[in-house]
């Protein structure tokens, strides 16, 4: 067993990441869990350093919030891979690495003599990860997050009941995220195998197929019955149009009702809350809710077969909509959840990170920026490890760790 004195899960692994929007999250996930991730940037810096928004709206390569988010806990060296000297330095750096992650245009690294084929014969333990459009042997069309989500499936399922409105790209650059979400467990599995076999390998992650593998029912309804799902406002795309699950509450905020009450405990809880709020007289579905006492559990497939079940189920939906007209979204969310009903408030990102539960669990992560002599709040740990906690430091300045190159042969 390795003598690992650090309390980081990935302590001691060195990862070289060729800076790119497409693979930055994979490097971040490994770095925040303790791997030494060295992001290799061109001398002028990764292009994402130039992207808005900037801290304080001051355009500067050290101020891009995109860079700040995706590069926590990493180290930066600047290398011009087109120059012979820096290419040699890159090659020397790769010799010290356990893992390389790159998402360069197909053929670029090979043309520079800096691809997997050039390294793996001399470093048989190397794990090389390419994130490509649809394979290292595929083509490389100009593509962005938007076009990948369009041709990869997610866009077809997202949008509104009114199909005259364009379908919608889900926000947050999720096509790149999803490829990284497949790259990371693949790298980890390769590391585990290497511990026993002593061998590295080549991992090739397809952006297109990552999105294709992340569409839930759009694919499942086609693979299992050749039915096409149709997009619907704020809820699952399905072969048939379903009823709303999203309501606007008294404070104007939106709310996801989840699956409405389906058993007698839930119907009773809903009724007693309406009574507590002294809203019985105004709540037209209230009387029908009483019939909910007859149901241990209403199956969703039984709604069409049992008229009473359908009527009671509908009354539950209407009662929640009624409560939404009288309550703020947050009060409806907490009130229903405390009464055992799964539902959710539709938060914006800034509301999410300020919510008492997120705060109570320590999700907002304070990261110190010594050049600004202040801390800023980042989204924190996606998971809580009891022995090897996630942790993050600020993203590196361009070439901040150039000294690492001095240690190379």
């Amino acid at each position, binding site marked *: 067993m*390795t003598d690992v004195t650090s309390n980081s899960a990935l302590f001691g692994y060195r990862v070289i990441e060729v800076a790119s929007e497409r693979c930055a999250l994979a490097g971040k996930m490994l770095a925040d869990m303790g791997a030494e991730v060295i992001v290799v940037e061109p001398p002028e810096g990764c292009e994402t350093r130039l992207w808005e928004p900037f801290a304080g709206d001051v355009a500067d390569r050290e101020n891009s919030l995109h860079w700040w988010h995706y590069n926590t806990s990493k180290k930066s060296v600047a290398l011009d891979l087109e120059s012979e000297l820096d290419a040699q330095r890159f090659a020397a750096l790769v010799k010290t690495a356990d893992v390389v992650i790159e998402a360069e245009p197909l053929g670029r690294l090979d043309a520079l003599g800096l691809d997997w084929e050039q390294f793996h014969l001399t470093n048989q333990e190397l794990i090389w990860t390419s994130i490509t459009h649809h394979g290292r042997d595929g083509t490389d069309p100009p593509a962005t997050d938007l076009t990948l989500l369009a041709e990869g499936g997610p866009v077809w399922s997202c949008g509104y009941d009114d199909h005259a*409105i364009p379908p919608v790209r889900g926000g947050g650059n999720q096509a790149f995220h999803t490829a990284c979400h497949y790259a990371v467990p693949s790298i980890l599995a390769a590391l585990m195998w290497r511990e026993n076999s002593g061998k590295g390998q080549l991992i090739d992650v397809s952006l297109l197929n990552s999105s294709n*593998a992340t569409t*839930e029912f759009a694919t499942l309804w086609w693979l299992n019955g050749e039915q096409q799902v149709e997009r619907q406002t704020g809820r699952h795309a399905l072969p048939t149009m379903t009823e709303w699950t999203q309501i606007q509450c008294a404070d104007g905020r939106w709310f996801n009702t989840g699956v409405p009450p389906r058993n007698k405990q839930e119907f009773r809880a809903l009724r007693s809350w309406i009574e507590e709020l002294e809203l019985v007289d105004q709540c037209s579905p209230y009387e029908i809710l009483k019939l909910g006492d007859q149901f241990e559990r209403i199956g969703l497939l039984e709604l069409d077969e049992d008229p009473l079940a359908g009527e009671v189920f509908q009354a539950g939906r209407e009662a929640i909509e009624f409560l939404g007209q009288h309550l703020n979204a947050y009060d409806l969310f907490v009130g229903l959840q405390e009464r055992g009903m799964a539902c959710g408030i539709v938060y914006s990102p800034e509301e999410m990170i300020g919510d008492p539960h997120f705060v109570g669990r320590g999700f907002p992560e304070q990261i110190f920026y010594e050049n600004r002599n202040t801390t800023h*709040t980042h989204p924190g740990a*996606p998971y809580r490890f009891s022995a090897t906690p996630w942790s993050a430091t600020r993203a590196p300045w361009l070439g901040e760790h150039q000294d690492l190159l001095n240690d190379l042969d």
Partner: protein
Amino acid sequence: MAMLNGQRKSMTSQKSQALDNIRICDFTGQLAGAGATKILAAFGAEVIRIEDPIQQGKWDILRGVPPWIGNARGLEAGGAFNNHNAGKLGITLNLRDSRAKELLRELVRVSDAVTENFASGVMERLGFGYEDLRSIREDIVYVSNNGFGATGPYAAFKSWGPIAQAVSGLTYTSGLPDLPPAGWGYSFMDHTGGYYMATAVLMALIHRQRTGQGQWVDLACIEAAGTLNGVATLDATVNQRPMRREGMPNSNRSQSPKMSPHGIWPTKGHDNWIAIAVRDDREWQILSQIIGETWSSEDRWTRIENRVQDEDELEELLTTWTLNHDRQELAQELINAGVPSAPVLKPQERIEYDQRTAELWVTVEHTEVGQCKVEGLPVRMSETPWSIARGAACLGEHNQYVFGELLGLSDEEIETLAAESVI
């Protein structure tokens, strides 16, 4: 090419070696949990999924419900269940019975990790919380995955994918101005929660492999989701610029990096759309030439600042042009010219006709239903290709192997336990 041949071998039944020394004692279900252990099984782990014989495994709401696999119907014919559980073994344990609990203890003793996505607190009530598991096997890895996590004011709250998406900001940030949130038209966070769960299991196993130390990972889907809008969140915390402001969100546009035009436009035919992303002024010049109309060649559009300023107008003008085109032909023309573009593909088109995705759809053998298709992994691995050969296990299908071969019970003992509804 060796790499390609290596991965393509995985489409046959050869098992991946990457995790072939790992055994997972698996309580997961639905997609957020089952999706995680499907990945581990594809990498070669022996995943033993445990179901309740009394409820016929129906804690998992996807068991025995549509979409049906072909013409099959019933408990084993749910297409989503089959997809998310392909490649795993299946056993039954009635944990109301003390004999089943003892069998579970024996299984934990020979497992590397325990995985579950019950509501918070269920495993403790069953007597198998982390401290209990640790007393059975000191170095066990335990990964729990539920919507709100194991601690905090909402620890008892319940969640599904759409709820995790709503609470974390993912629903709000997917939509168009002056309309309700469009959100994700599926459980994006069930998929993605599963990816984080698989990652958590592997990170913890690597740590154990190197140190001998096990641990508990408390995964809350809402927190995993809360990391996925990082730039917008930082804009709020650093610049005090909230996403809840006029004109936002507009997720078909691109704010970081700034691109324009950037969106989805209607084309010829019913519900046909094309996505176009113009990354810079040079690409606009190319597009404007392809459009070839008077308006597109006007100087006012040559600079991104101006295109962004009058983006509504530009989008309307583009609509008048795209409407007369076939989306596939137009996308190909733009790609050939170097402008990112893609048709919005419908399920049939991307699954049946897009040859680039062919290796993702895997034919597996289901014991009761026969041959059927499931999703594979969008990854090729040169030395340890993933493999999914078998469909989801039928209820209790591998009781004989697990309780007999693995735990050493006699056939007679297994028969008795089955007769007495312990397994």
